[in-house]
């Protein structure tokens, strides 16, 4: 979750595993959009001596679809290469790293940024330095300052960062994966126990983040600021992907693998939890290899979601109205596959047309909220999920409530949601570093020395 280890194949390839995607109008620079894609889930902060880094053999991309086709009209590509400064040591660093250019960092990594628009590529920057991971107080003192040196400006109005961050996603993984238990409501579970507080399963975990901040006009269909929220050109669709070369040959003479052929997509992510809880296990790997414009083939899993059928079974008597609802879930299809047309939520739309595609849709004409609500649009905050996604949005609760039927009345006023659909939650919040108020918005990663192992129990 939200897309950590969500499919059988990608769970064995963490360097290419896209865990979360965020897209929002930057609260401190409202003429810009911030796009974030996270990779490499469940990083143990003290996982050395070969600490986490981006894959030199992976093509990372953040895509924008602004034409209503569900296809990528603009793609930002990120290609990495790591170096070894001192080939005679096993150490990640040979002394304190106070600057990202310090020679004591033995394994620096650099990257390029390429923008592809309608097939035409333009390299925006090369040899940008990623920061080291947060090793500990001796190796990476003042980590926040060190990471800040890895925020690069491209031109005058664009920023990019690629490196380790605290995982900002939060969910009670241990509970949810144990037969759909929500600890605050587990007294009503089929196998009941006393209600309890949620436990953030991502606590103490880091991820690797690619964050990009660009002017709104870089992303819209006509290169202009939209006239208003109801302007169809105000909506962009966002997804991220990771791709690997078609063939990897393990050569015992050369001692290193050789790669041949074009890049093939192995991971993608638009809306949180789509592949995780909508797509059946047998099709998850296939879904990861496909582009969003073909998602019509998965639409049946959205309009008749397995989870909506499980909730009344796992929580007997709690969701009678949901259990009795047999119509196609047009509310979920709108939220996840087409965007919400105008007229459904007064004064709002993020509709990209009839093409069904799992895209994180952002209406860039909605200004940042002065008092953001992590429950986003369902709580009246149109600047939040599912209008894009901010780092602090509680997407687990929002999607749980939507699947439980809270959003059905948007398209079917005759339906009366069960009382529980407005209350269910997993009971978690961010327990990692605080989110930042400025780019790249995700918090300082947990340090290896500073972090303590978890508490095993059987």
């Amino acid at each position, binding site marked *: 979750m939200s897309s950590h280890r969500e499919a059988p194949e990608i769970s064995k390839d963490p360097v290419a595993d896209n865990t979360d995607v965020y897209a929002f109008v930057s609260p401190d620079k409202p003429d810009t959009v911030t796009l974030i894609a996270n990779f490499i889930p469940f990083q143990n902060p003290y996982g050395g001596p070969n600490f986490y880094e981006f894959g030199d053999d992976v093509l990372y991309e953040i895509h924008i679809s602004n034409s209503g086709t569900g296809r990528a009209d603009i793609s930002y590509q990120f290609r990495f290469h790591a170096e070894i400064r001192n080939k005679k040591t096993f150490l990640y660093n040979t002394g304190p790293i106070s600057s990202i250019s310090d020679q004591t960092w033995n394994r620096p990594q650099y990257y390029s940024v390429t923008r592809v628009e309608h097939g035409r590529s333009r390299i925006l920057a090369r040899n940008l330095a990623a920061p080291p991971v947060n090793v500990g107080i001796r190796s990476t003192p003042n980590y926040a300052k060190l990471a800040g040196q890895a925020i690069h400006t491209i031109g005058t109005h664009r920023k990019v960062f690629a490196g380790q961050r605290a995982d900002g996603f939060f969910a009670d993984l241990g509970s949810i994966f144990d037969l759909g238990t929500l600890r605050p409501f587990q007294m009503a579970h089929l196998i009941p126990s006393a209600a309890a507080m949620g436990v953030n399963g991502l606590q103490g975990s880091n991820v690797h983040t690619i964050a990009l901040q660009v002017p709104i006009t870089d992303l819209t269909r006509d290169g202009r600021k939209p006239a208003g929220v109801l302007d169809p050109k105000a909506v962009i669709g966002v997804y991220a992907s990771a791709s690997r*070369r*078609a*063939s990897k*040959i393990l050569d015992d003479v050369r001692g290193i693998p*050789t790669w*041949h*052929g*074009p*890049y093939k997509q192995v991971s993608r992510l638009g809306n949180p939890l789509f592949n995780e809880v909508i797509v059946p296990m047998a099709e998850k790997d296939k879904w990861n290899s496909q582009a969003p414009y073909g998602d019509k083939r998965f639409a049946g899993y959205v309009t008749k979601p397995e989870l909506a059928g499980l909730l009344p079974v796992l929580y007997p008597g709690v969701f009678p109205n949901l259990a009795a609802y047999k119509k196609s879930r047009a509310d979920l299809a709108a939220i996840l596959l087409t965007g919400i047309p105008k007229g459904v939520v007064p004064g709002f739309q993020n509709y990209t047309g009839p093409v069904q595609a799992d895209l994180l849709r952002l209406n860039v004409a909605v200004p940042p909220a002065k008092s953001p609500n992590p429950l986003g649009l369902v709580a009246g905050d149109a600047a939040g999920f599912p209008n894009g996604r901010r780092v602090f949005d509680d997407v687990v609760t929002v999607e749980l409530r939507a699947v439980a039927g809270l959003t059905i009345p948007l398209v079917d006023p005759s339906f009366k949601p069960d009382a529980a659909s407005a209350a269910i939650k997993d009971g978690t919040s961010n327990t990692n570093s605080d989110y930042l108020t400025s780019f790249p918005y995700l918090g300082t990663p947990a340090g290896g020395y500073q972090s303590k192992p978890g508490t095993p129990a059987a």
Partner: protein
Amino acid sequence: MSDATRRGFLVFAGAGTAAAVGAVAVPKILGERPVAAAGGDELQAADLATAESFVVHVKDVKSGELAILVGDREVLLTDRELAARLAGVATA
């Protein structure tokens, strides 16, 4: 790889016409004409001759569907006889 297919492959490779990875007599794979790549550009015989290495993927032995992976390109072609010889089986 079974003994039968290994034998077939070795005989085939020994004849100097092709190997799954490495230098090959290019015209035997591509023919004399360039082959259209998936991206629309054309793969010339020289593209393979100058490559340090490349991969030939027999996608379907029966139909002879092959993919040549060279650099960051993938070129599809159909050659039932070549696929069959690599697999060490007789063509129908």
